[in-house]
């Protein structure tokens, strides 16, 4: 590949005695988007750092070379390296919040980057900065230049990061998990931008990600990495549609998809009274300057015994607030919760505490770092009156077996476990009291895809075996669809749509559900699933316009922004009403925006 701008040849990187990258080869041409995909620990980020000679002090390149236009970057001097970093090679990180200095305006950030690479006078730099912001799709760039990062939403910050990386007109742009911290509807726009950058500026883009959907939507070629080695390399269509290596096949099989047949879920009892009833639940916080933030706005729903209700929403939708209110971690501002007809408050009887348990999102934060696993699992048992030491120890063994862990591990501390294993421990702790209702708050979002699939299987299996009722919360519609009987879609604190999982994902009634579905990354690169009109304008910023209208009005693809005759969306708030038996939506024009790509499979 003689026209490649960046070439990595047989690269080997060691951290101490551990080989992190072992013989990686790839090349990128100008204008091409190359994806590097791998799970945590695959060495994908080390490759990017090595290309910039930015490996941490413990890491060393022990073999191979990184060639930029044929020049080995290992041979560059410190001065030449400075021109390389942010000059020839730009870098975009995962977290746009911590990568921008909160004290400096966007203009200062850009000016600094331009000046560092000797781009013209102050006035010229200013003009260039405005152009850059326009290029990355930030509206009103003149005003934005004067503002500091906190005024921007997550997606806009990531766009600014890309503008910064592009300031010196790099030949190669490395983007390390650029959309991982963003909502799906926001990520779509950022990925489209990266694609446009490659096409219009002829930049070679290297996109590093764990998300196959991101690669499928953006890249032309893909490198699949596992434990430091390239297991597969080729055109996206070939690798993702006809994977050769068993690892790639397994990875693809593990990705939850929206277009696969729904698994048969059993066990829902339709006749009996609801186990959990949420009626008119609201939660508002008071801000520092007295303003009120409504994070949950008049949400009503019910869960029947044996049912799994999925709750989907982006960040700021109030889904975790709902979960924690039901779990009793905090009180709601208004509305009521009933469990078997009994009122639920934060002060609960031991019996209610036993019956409702929560699995946390982050298995690293939810276990006490110093407490042995056995002790952590014993605590709820002791708290619920199991006095006998032996009985407790037996139950701990049983719990560990239940979640697929060796009972021997009970003397270990959390640091000795992987993320997936810790999540199993978190589930075991929630099951310790034999709950009736298990709330899972994003239980798999921080896990690798293959681990994610196993934890989901475990949850489904436990649900069937123990007859659990579940509230399953996630931002990922494809995950929720796999495990839920019914799905509730939340948007900025309001319930938008509620219905059976199959029907809701196949024929969504609410335009927001439609946009969520079209933004959901699919591992199928051939699917042209993103008609332009479904790209959302703006993004949820946690402070929706409160008032009389529909909370989604300003971003709705069929709302007043697009169609002048739909003033009603701004004037009158749509009630949640039943459009088909068992299907509810809060929209004046429910069902008018359809998405025929996915066949109903339930």
């Amino acid at each position, binding site marked *: 590949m003689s026209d490649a701008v960046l070439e990595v040849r047989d690269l080997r990187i060691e951290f101490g005695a551990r080989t992190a990258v072992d013989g990686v080869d790839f090349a990128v041409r100008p204008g091409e988007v190359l994806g590097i995909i791998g799970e945590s620990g695959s060495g994908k980020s080390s490759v990017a750092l090595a290309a910039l000679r930015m490996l941490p002090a413990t890491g060393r390149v022990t073999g191979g070379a990184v060639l930029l236009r044929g020049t080995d970057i290992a041979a560059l001097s410190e001065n030449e390296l400075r021109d390389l970093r942010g000059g020839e090679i730009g870098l975009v990180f995962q977290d746009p919040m911590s990568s921008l200095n909160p004290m400096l305006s966007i203009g200062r950030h850009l000016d600094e980057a331009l000046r560092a690479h000797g781009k013209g006078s102050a006035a010229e730099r200013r003009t260039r900065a405005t152009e850059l912001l326009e290029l990355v799709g930030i509206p009103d760039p003149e005003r934005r230049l004067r503002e500091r990062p906190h005024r921007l939403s997550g997606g806009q910050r990531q766009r600014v990061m890309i503008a910064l990386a592009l300031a010196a007109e790099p030949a190669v742009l490395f983007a390390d998990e650029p959309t991982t911290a963003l909502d799906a509807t926001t990520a779509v726009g950022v990925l489209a931008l990266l694609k446009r950058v490659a096409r219009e500026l002829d930049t070679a883009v290297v996109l590093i990600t764990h998300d196959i959907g991101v690669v499928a939507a953006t890249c032309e070629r893909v490198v699949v990495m596992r434990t430091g080695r390239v297991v597969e390399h080729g055109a996206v269509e070939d690798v993702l549609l006809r994977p050769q290596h068993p690892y790639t096949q397994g990875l693809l099989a593990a990705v939850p998809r929206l277009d696969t047949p729904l698994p048969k879920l059993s066990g829902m009892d339709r006749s009996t009274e609801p186990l959990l009833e949420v009626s008119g639940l609201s939660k508002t916080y008071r801000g520092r300057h007295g303003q009120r933030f409504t994070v949950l706005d008049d949400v009503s729903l019910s869960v029947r015994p044996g049912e799994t209700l999925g709750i989907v929403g982006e960040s700021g939708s109030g889904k975790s607030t709902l979960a924690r209110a039901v779990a*009793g971690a905090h009180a709601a501002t208004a509305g009521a919760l009933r469990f078997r007809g009994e009122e639920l408050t934060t002060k609960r009887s031991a019996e209610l505490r036993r019956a409702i348990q929560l699995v946390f999102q982050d298995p690293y934060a939810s276990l006490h770092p110093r407490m042995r696993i056995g002790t952590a699992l014993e605590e709820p048992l002791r708290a619920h009156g199991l006095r006998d030491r032996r009985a407790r120890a037996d139950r701990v063994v049983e719990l560990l077996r239940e979640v697929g862990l060796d009972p021997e591990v009970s003397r270990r501390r959390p640091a000795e476990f992987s993320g997936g294993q810790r999540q199993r421990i978190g589930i075991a702790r929630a099951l310790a009291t034999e709950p009736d209702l298990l709330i899972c708050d994003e239980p798999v979002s921080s896990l690798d895809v293959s681990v994610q699939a196993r934890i989901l299987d475990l949850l489904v299996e436990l649900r069937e075996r123990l007859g659990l009722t579940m509230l399953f919360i996630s931002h990922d519609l494809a995950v929720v669809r796999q495990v839920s009987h019914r799905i509730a879609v939340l948007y900025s604190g309001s319930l938008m749509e509620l219905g059976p999982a199959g029907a809701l994902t196949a024929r969504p009634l609410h335009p927001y559900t439609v946009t969520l579905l079209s933004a959901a990354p699919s591992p199928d690169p051939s699917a042209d699933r993103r008609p332009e009109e479904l790209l959302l304008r703006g993004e949820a910023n946690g402070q929706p316009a409160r008032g009389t209208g529909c909370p989604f009005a300003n971003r709705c693809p069929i709302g007043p922004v697009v169609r002048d005759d739909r003033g009603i969306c701004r004037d009158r708030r749509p009630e949640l009403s039943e459009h088909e038996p068992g299907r509810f939506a809060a929209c004046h024009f429910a069902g008018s925006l359809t998405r025929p790509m996915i066949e109903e499979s339930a």
Partner: protein
Amino acid sequence: MTVVAVAVPAQRRTGVLRSARARVALGVVVVLGLAGAFAGLLSPEDPRAQTARLLTGPSGAHWLGTDELGRDLLSRVLHGIQVDLVVGVAGVAVAGLLGVLAAVLSARWAAADVVAQRVFDVLLAFPSLILAVAVAAVLGTGMVSITVAIVLSQAPICCRVVRAGLLAQRDRDYAVAARLSGVGPWRVLLRHLLPTALDALVVQLVLSLSTAVFLEGGMSFVGIGVRPPDPSLGNILQESVQYLTVRPSFVVGPLVAITALVLGFTVLGDALNNAARRGGSQA
């Protein structure tokens, strides 16, 4: 389906003694600690015994010389170190205990928090030496007053350090998880929150020791601490300063001892702090 847990190699705990500075500081503190503990055995003479050899310089018989009453300075400095360490350790230990107690009560009951914090606000508003004058006015001079002054000035700081640690963790997922699984509030506080909060306290206790030495020096120097003829680093220093022009070497012994103690504890506290932060980020 049994998944066997694979042990992640335990990260080597980065110790306190990683830096040379910390090792030197620990050495200084240990040497001075031993010197204070065995002052009686190490002293060549009775620190209160007066002789006719007044204000002599260092010599084979008196390594640090003698003071204005002909007493052996080495013996006096050694006993002075002992006094400083006794009031320091006693005062700081009591301050630490009171601090933990107040912090735990504050974290448990909002009302206790309000009361404790306002009382501590008042105590912290006074410079420690002014506070010490007030204590001496009530209790008279002597080792007990110094200890009380150390407690009053350090307990609020200890309390704040522990309280901050408790509050910072209270809304962490693991604490919420414990509460939701039915664990009682006391047990959450003592088993889940307190152990981590105590890390910071250890650092604070060592730093408080250096303040304690400083406070003893200050109180005795202005005459409201340990009264002569009993030796303490503060009052030896005070006497030596009067003869600074006549016998400059007089000042060396007490000055070096105070400086070494304060510096040793401060540097050691810093090192502990760094180690706790490194360890904390791994945990």
